[in-house]
């Protein structure tokens, strides 16, 4: 505990007892502090994923694949065995892992550039082969790592550094709904779109991640959890404003909820 923490956090000894603990940082996250900008949804999803892995007791059975993009360093934070993949190739790398270690739980963690632009082929084909993977897709509609260029998922009219007059769909194409696209494939078992802009949505996202991993445990096929997220720095907004952007602009175009749900038997 640092000095600041000691001074500012007087601990109520009658409440702060292990039996009354309702939330703490999951031990599956490493000690490393997130490099993400304040308010970034990436870290929220990292945290949720590690909560689920911890709760399911699969830390030793899980292998993750980090993408290229803002979350390239995911392996510094997620306390499971990880591989860092070339840009867009996470689903291929994950296929390689899963095929030789089918008993393990394998996930990829990818942004919209990695998954829906440069890695579209890898994503579509892994999905179509019905690879038993959980693909976590963070859609914030913009390129974060390279600072604010247009993503395939950027909204129509959205101003980015490479669409300075707003995305013109006639020349720059339409925002890509990758989840809907993949949901059509027979190898795909579960597709859902969630968000992390409110506490309620965070809860639902966690549940979705849990479902994805549980389906994988049963080898039911390809699972995709899309998380509509924010990018305060590149949207040039405060974190709160960026979450409002998510609620008012992103979610209307990328509606939340399950897109492909397994039939209940």
């Amino acid at each position: 505990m640092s000095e600041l923490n000691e001074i500012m956090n007087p601990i109520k000894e009658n409440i702060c007892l292990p039996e009354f603990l309702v939330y703490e940082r999951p031990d599956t996250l490493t000690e490393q502090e997130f490099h993400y900008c304040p308010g970034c949804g990436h870290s929220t999803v990292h945290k949720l994923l590690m909560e689920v892995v911890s709760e399911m007791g699969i830390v030793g059975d899980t292998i993750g694949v980090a993408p290229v993009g803002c979350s390239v360093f995911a392996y510094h934070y997620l306390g499971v065995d990880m591989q860092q993949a070339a840009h867009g190739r996470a689903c291929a790398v994950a296929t390689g892992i899963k095929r030789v270690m089918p008993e393990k739980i394998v996930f990829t963690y990818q942004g919209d550039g990695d998954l829906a632009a440069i890695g579209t082929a890898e994503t579509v084909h892994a999905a179509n082969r019905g690879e038993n993977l959980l693909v976590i897709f963070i859609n914030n509609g913009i390129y974060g790592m390279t600072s604010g260029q247009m993503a395939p998922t950027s909204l129509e009219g959205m101003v980015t550094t490479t669409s300075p007059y707003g995305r013109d769909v006639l020349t720059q194409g339409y925002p890509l709904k990758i989840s809907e696209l993949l949901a059509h494939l027979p190898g795909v078992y579960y597709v859902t779109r969630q968000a992390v802009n409110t506490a309620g949505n965070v809860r639902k996202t966690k549940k979705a991640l849990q479902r994805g991993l549980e389906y994988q445990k049963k080898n039911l096929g390809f699972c995709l959890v899309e998380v509509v997220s924010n990018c305060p720095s590149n949207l040039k907004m405060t974190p709160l404003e960026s979450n409002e952007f998510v609620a008012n602009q992103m979610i209307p175009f990328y509606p939340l909820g399950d897109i492909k749900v397994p039939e209940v038997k």
Partner: protein
Amino acid sequence: MGDVKFMKGNEALSEAMIRAGCDAYFGYPITPQSEVLEYLAREATKRTGMVVLQAESEVSAINMIYGAAGCGKRVMTTSSSPGISLMQEGLSYIASAELPCLVANINRGGPGLGTIQPAQGDYFQSVKGGGHGDYHLVVLAPCSVQEMVDYVKLGFELADKYRTPVMILADGAIGQMMEKVELFPQMERVVTDYPWATTGRPAGKDRRYITSLHIQPEKMEEINHTLQAKYKVMQETEVRYQALHLDDAEYLMTGFGLAARICIKAMELGRAKGYKIGMIRPQTLFPFPTKIYAEVAPRIKGILDVEMNAGQMIEDVRLSVEGKTRVEFFGRMGGMIPSPDEILENFEKYFIKGS
């Protein structure tokens, strides 16, 4: 003694892969090496339980290799020139992350889509790195179907020993031709518990990760030093070559793979005419057998380098001899194969008639 069979180069390579206890193959069909995936699809899984998967592209295949190699498995892919070009990104990552794997390039004529006929135009992209950054692959150059088999075993051994990608650089002719071949017996598929492999975080220990990203330049330089040190050891200990008639040679012919075998015939024809020709055939193109060329150079009148390209290995030959002897070139390109007669004619043109 193992089984003796009459086999196609590509099939022998595939059979060797199965017998070497390979855990997984990921690949994409391309002429002239499509038999590999076909053979494995037919034989491998049912015999050893090996994973065989047809990827959607070479880009994907090499990244599947990355993933599986990262789990400490014995893995291999094959392709031909345009496909190998697509794999260069992945190979750079694999070299940097220090993962062991084996890649075979059944070289065809290029550039571009080129032809489906045999060529050796991928020497540069094989031995000089190929992808981005400072790295090398160990490059083995078979000249016969037998060596296609032998180098699969050797390739896996070197890959494991140095945690490095190894490439078998053959060509369409070696892939397609049939020869007598002795196969080594089936090896066990071994599960090796590498401390670096991502197989699920061991209880009570820290998680492992495989990456080629080191954002601190100091750290990245350190990684580079590690790689370079490894390459230096290879240059000292892993050089392999075949030499013929070096004792009385006044001239040398040199080449690798199929071109070298044709040279041997040309050398025989030349010796029958009284020319004292010797021969050096590098079996490892990286590490390159620099020393033997340097040793022979001062006492010979010239070297004819023969390749099925515009002259690529010749650069390494010239660097090796350091100007101490003449090095001339004869090559055919784009899928054309030089004949022994042509080679001898060129030898005579440079060293007999012209001298």
